[in-house]
């Protein structure tokens, strides 16, 4: 008997907020400094020090809440989550527990079979812990508290995802959103954006959830996918073998591509949450919230709808172009400079440009060919100075020496030949050089037309205007 299983996934995403200073102290949040130079007495949890809330972190959390259509709590509470660990200087983490700043809300994800809405239970502010370093110190462990007190927004989804692919689409959507809102740099390698995945399986059609496992600290989309797929397979195998899933926290080992138990429910800490008496309840007034609302940028979904509607792009293209704000801005700049030709701009941005960026591992902001340069190139296609094929050659040259399209076209003599008599001269040469093919064509072998087009283009060094070549060839071959 074969049972159909359904996967249920919820994600807890930790987005490091892009504030200059920490959430409860004035020290810098910059990444990569020498250990412990960016930890002041507050971060170190010295006796007598007190936390003071960074208003910028609050503003960023509110931006996020408004962008997902959530309720912004007019009053939220900071609590202490108590546990001992050397990289947790105070012996407790300040987080929000019972009354988070953001509640409810949702985002839409696009899948091959249509759109799905994923619910967001809550998003709350908290401080990050430091790092324990176990390598290169012999038998000792080191503690780096530079990260301690860095502001995090923990975004908790509903268990609304049904496959690893949906989980990735959701995570990418949040990734796009936080970067649009400029509240997180989204750098996953540095850990600025990471997640825990709650995974369970159940018989398809059942309402109650299966026992879940939480996979901790996944810091790449690929790892999320692999960890979930492994975990789903593991749970199904266990259940089908007559066993049961134990509720526990697991770690993903990316080298061995498997999840491993970290601690069971019984070993879980009792965090003894209680309101932090050092911080007053956070009260937000309407004016503060409205100010943030009115300053919200155009969001990716809104932008995609506009691109589709105003530019006549497909939903897919609009989605790709709005996946990052920089990419969308680049595309829009090209369209604006060209005046029109949105589809041409979209194809180039998603095609050659994205291809080269990927090849050289560059962000759009680092592109050697700027929006103005690309628009200059495309303008030469539009006005027939060069063909689309030559344009690719020009683009490659622009990429290498960062010069303008016109300069390259001029220097390399790539200007398209549109002079009818010049093209006719080339056609005559080709006809003369290929008498047998000419005779065959004229005796009814129409397929040879393509051969003559190819020969003419080759003889013109690719510069002859293809439309004119077609037209003139047809006329002259007919005799």
């Amino acid at each position, binding site marked *: 008997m074969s049972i159909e299983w359904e996967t249920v996934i919820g994600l807890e995403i930790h987005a490091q907020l892009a504030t200059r200073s920490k959430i409860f102290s004035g020290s810098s949040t910059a990444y990569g400094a020498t250990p412990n130079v960016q930890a002041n007495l507050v971060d170190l949890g*010295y006796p*007598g020090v*007190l936390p003071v809330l960074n208003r910028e972190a609050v503003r960023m959390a509110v931006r996020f809440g408004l962008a997902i259509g959530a309720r912004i709590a007019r009053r939220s509470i900071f609590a202490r989550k*108590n546990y001992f660990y050397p990289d947790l*200087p105070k*012996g407790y983490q300040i987080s929000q527990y019972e009354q988070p700043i953001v509640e409810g809300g949702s985002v839409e994800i696009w899948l091959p079979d249509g759109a799905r809405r994923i619910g967001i239970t809550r998003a709350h502010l908290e401080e990050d812990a430091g790092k324990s370093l176990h390598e290169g110190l012999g038998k000792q462990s080191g503690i780096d508290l530079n990260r301690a007190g860095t502001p995090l927004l923990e975004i908790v989804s509903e268990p609304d995802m049904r496959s690893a692919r949906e989980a990735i689409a959701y995570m990418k959507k949040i990734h796009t959103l936080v970067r649009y809102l400029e509240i997180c740099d989204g750098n996953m390698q540095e850990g600025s954006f990471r997640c825990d995945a709650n995974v369970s399986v159940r018989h398809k059609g059942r309402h109650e959830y299966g026992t879940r496992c939480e996979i901790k600290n996944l810091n790449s989309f690929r790892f999320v996918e692999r960890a979930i797929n492994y975990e789903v397979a593991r749970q199904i195998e266990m259940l089908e073998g007559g066993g049961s899933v134990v509720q526990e926290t697991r770690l993903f080992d990316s080298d061995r591509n498997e999840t491993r138990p970290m601690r069971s429910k019984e070993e879980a800490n009792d965090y003894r949450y209680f309101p932090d008496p050092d*911080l*007053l309840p956070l009260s937000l007034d309407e004016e503060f919230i409205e100010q943030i609302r009115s300053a919200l940028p155009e969001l990716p979904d809104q932008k995609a709808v506009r691109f589709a509607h105003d530019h006549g792009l497909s939903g897919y293209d609009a989605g790709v172009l709005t996946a990052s704000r920089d990419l969308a801005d680049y595309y829009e700049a090209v369209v604006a400079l060209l005046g029109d030709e949105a589809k041409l701009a979209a194809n180039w941005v998603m095609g050659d440009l994205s291809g080269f960026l990927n090849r050289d591992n560059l962000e759009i902001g680092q592109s050697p060919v700027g929006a103005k340069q690309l628009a200059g190139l495309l303008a030469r296609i539009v006005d027939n100075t060069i063909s689309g094929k030559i344009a690719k050659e020009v683009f490659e040259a622009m990429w290498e020496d960062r010069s303008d399209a016109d300069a390259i076209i001029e220097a390399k003599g790539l200007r398209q030949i549109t002079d009818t008599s010049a093209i006719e001269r080339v056609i005559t040469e080709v006809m003369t050089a290929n008498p047998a093919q000419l005779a065959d064509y004229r005796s009814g072998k129409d397929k040879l037309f393509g051969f003559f087009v190819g020969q003419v283009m080759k003889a013109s060094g690719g510069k002859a205007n293809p439309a004119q070549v077609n037209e003139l060839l047809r006329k002259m071959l007919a005799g």
Partner: protein
Amino acid sequence: MTAAEIGRGLRAGKFTSIEVTRHFLERIDHAGKQLNAFITVTPERAMADAKRADARIARGEGGPLTGVPLAHKDIFCTEGVLTSCGSRMLSNFVSPYDATVVERLAVAGMVMLGKTNMDEFAMGSSNETSWYGPVRNPWDGSKVPGGSSGGSAAAVAARLAPVATGTDTGGSIRQPGALTGLTGFKPTYGRVSRYGMVAFASSLDQAGVLAQSAEDAALVLGLMAGHDARDSTSVAVPVPDYAAGLGRSMKGLRIGVIREFFGEGLEEGTGRAVRTALEGFSAMGATIVELSLPNLPLSVPTYYVVAPAECSSNLSRFDGVRFGHRCKDPRDLLDMYKRSRGEGFGAEVKRRIMTGTYVLSAGYYDAYYLKAQKVRSLINEDFRRAFSEVDVLMGPTTPTPAFAIGAKVDDPITMYLNDIYTIGANLAGLPAVSVPCGLVDGLPVGLQIIGPHFAEERLLAAAHAWQLMTDWHRRLPPLFA
């Protein structure tokens, strides 16, 4: 001589701060030795402070307390000076920064003599829980001075310092103030910054003064108080000129006498002294009404849930990792935690950490912590209702005069009941003061005056009026006269 009198003498050129400072350092060295009032004496720093103060006074600068020495309770962080909090855990902790209170009093030109003994992490009512040993009451060396600011109280009572800072979480300024014949002032919660004060129970802790008079308390409080951006719970209410408000008349002052404070457990002599004081206020034109705060008797159990809960979390940072005591040769992380904390904390601190951990645990939180918070709001409500009828509340500060060292050490419940009259003001965040109102068998007892939030001026004026018509606050312990 009071702090205010020393200040006036300095500005009149009758003596210099260096002379005054030397006088107190000598007293600490000789007369004070047997009291164990100080954990650290800082003579070099004191003399340097005094020299600077003299220069300021000579230029005609500074304020009423410039050049006047003081002692800080060892709970306040002092840059470059041991800040032990009365604990073995911090017996090696030299603070890298000054508490806001320390900084403000230094800026005002006061001279730091040293750091006073205290109950470990301010947990205690007798100053017997200190790692540095008990403090003796100057009025009777076999008795406790009260706690947790016992060292500050003993130091001022024996005139080893003209004035001292203290902190009050459940009565830790007022109770030792009462037991040593001093004016012990606890301001409104949020009136004085807690930055740099080693935290015991953050929602209750408040810094204040142990002084010889209401005038001294007013002057020092005026320098300490005010908003501090580094403490989110400090309040941005302007600081009035407390000293200027001292002369207010008591005529028409409505005094509420808390019925619950005169029941079982109140020692007879103490009760008599307090009632006599009330008659004194009546004679000054105040009206006395008796009223009831029905939930107030719940303040001790409520406090012993809230305070340990907060302390269990506040003291988690003492883990041997970054500062403080670390055990020798830990086998592993868990061993380091267990032994460092096991060795570093004393019995009372451990008792409270365990109690606090228990009341916050899953399954017990609602029954203890949450319920205590609810009772706390009922107590608040009792006070609010009372202050809609009267201007101040009065009653005894403690149920009895000072008790013998060792008498209650093994009985925490009896010890905790010593704070039965003082805890309410902490739970409600109210300002309160204890002023000397008599001697019972040669030991001082105190009258407690509690006011509504930010009514410091009113309390100081009442205390001052009382001190104008009595001389209890001028009495000295016979051995230190």
